[in-house]
């Protein structure tokens, strides 16, 4: 974990020294980028590093929806199911994705390639329907666009 500790140090240096506690979420994000998903022992590691109660980090880990507490596929697909996307066909596209991938909401394909999540408004309402694959946004989606996007991903 020494390389991780270096990264922790660099990130911590960007916050005022008296604000160690503020680093809980940034460090959880950082660790998730490294590891894919997070466990309670990761939370304890961060708590020890920061000198804050383990409970605080564990609670944060279970509360923030962007933090993954179980293994996910290589590509995490997050489709918006909120109002503007629904008005533009999100339900149809979600059904299409479920069928195409052969999985339901929250599931991962057996080959470990894709995880399908349904999320709330991504602030792409003007370019709806929208989804996020890993970090990247994809907007003005159609079945054909989805085919093309997924094809690009190994």
């Amino acid at each position, binding site marked *: 974990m020494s390389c991780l500790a270096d990264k922790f140090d660099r990130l911590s240096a*960007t*916050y*005022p020294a*008296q*604000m160690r*506690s*503020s*680093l*809980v*979420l*940034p460090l*959880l*994000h950082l660790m998730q980028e490294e590891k894919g998903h997070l466990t309670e022992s990761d939370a304890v590691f961060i708590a020890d590093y*920061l000198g*804050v109660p383990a409970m*605080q980090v564990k*609670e*944060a880990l279970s*509360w*923030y*929806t*962007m*933090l993954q507490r179980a293994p996910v596929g290589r590509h995490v697909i*997050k489709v918006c*199911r*909120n*109002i*503007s996307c*629904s*008005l*533009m*066909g999100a*339900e*149809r596209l979600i059904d299409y994705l479920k069928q195409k991938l052969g999985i339901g909401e929250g599931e991962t394909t057996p080959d470990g390639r894709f995880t399908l999540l349904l*999320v*709330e*408004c*991504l*602030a*792409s*309402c*003007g*370019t*709806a329907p929208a989804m*996020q694959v890993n*970090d*990247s*946004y994809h907007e003005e989606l159609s079945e054909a666009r989805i085919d093309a996007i997924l094809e690009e991903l190994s």
Partner: protein
Amino acid sequence: MTEPRVFFNFEVTADSHTLAACRERSGYRALEKALLSMAPADVEKEVTASGLRGRGGAGFPTGAKWFFVDKKSRVVYLCCNADEGEPGTFKDRWIFENSSHQLIEGVLLAAYALNVRHAFIYIRGEFDLPYRRLREALTEAYAAGLAGERILGTEFCCDIIVHRGGGAYVCGEESSLLTSLEGFKGYPRNKPPFPAVKGLYQAPTVINNVETLATIPWIISHGGGAYAGIGNQNNCGTRLFGISGHVNRPGLYERPTGYPLKRIIFEDAGGIRGGKALKAVIPGGSSTPVLKGFEIEQVSLDAESVIQAGSMLGSGGIIVIAEGTCMVRLLQVLTRFYAHESCGQCTPCREGSAWMDRVLGRIVAGQGVKGDLESLESVTRGIMGNTVCALGDAASMPVASFLDKFRDEFAYYIEHGRSMNDGRLEV
């Protein structure tokens, strides 16, 4: 176009977001002007004179918010609220992607006025390009001596720290944002004390929306009086309105306040898709009460005008709904959202939002029973005004207004066990 523009005043190109391009359109001149020729109190005076109101949703006058802060306090914090999560809203994101420097300059001007040494930008965790653009812009600003130590060679020092959120809508609520920024799950806090008195780590704190702060450079460059002269008198200036849903040209439009709602929908956004009739409009983000199509005749994009019509201008996210849409299923999209986003801290919101969503789910499944609508209404009344933060109200207002405006559709669904519009959301 002769109307003044605070945001859409340049052509978006592959590099229009860079520092060089921003400088060409007089970026950071306002900061220069302030640091070299104005006292911090003068900056506040201009902002007060501008009549600027917060663009995050509540519309609180920015000058008044700043006035309440004790600038002599040993530490004062500034938090820029960039959590942009209100469904129907996508304006702050445009600012980050295309004009991050404008926001940075606004943050610095506010920090100068408020005696802030550390400013935070709490940005939605999902944001990718907006986040990268902001980081690039900050790197440029630091390298150019526009942020950090001794800015522009003056005594003024200010660091800007970008903090990524964790995907919780409630963290856009200002007290929840502070709890989250302190490293906890984002429970909102009881007010008072207000953040202006006891905010981040108990220090006086100002929280302003991205669009609010990004307007400040224009105000300092042109003067508060000039800004007050744009649009309507009591809710002046321009705003970024996002139009989404069943229109031909959805997108972001900068318009002066007082601009007719009908015009932005039918002219700017090209009218309703497929030439359908207008059924309903949610004028200020998903939390604001829905209006029927005919009710918007006289409404203008002015907070007072929208309130008179029975809704709110909120975050400026206009959601347009065409004839033929099933309002019952559409409401369930919203009840599911609020039930999911309730932080669970207070009983009326936690239990009420989950209960409303269950009942809606039952109605949509064809299992609605007589009395459901009345009990939904009584639950909204039980939530409103009885919660720690305004998410409870936000969850209730759509339910109350949908039931009020489209009652026959709900009654039909319960009676026949199916939608009178085939359950359509897409037209």
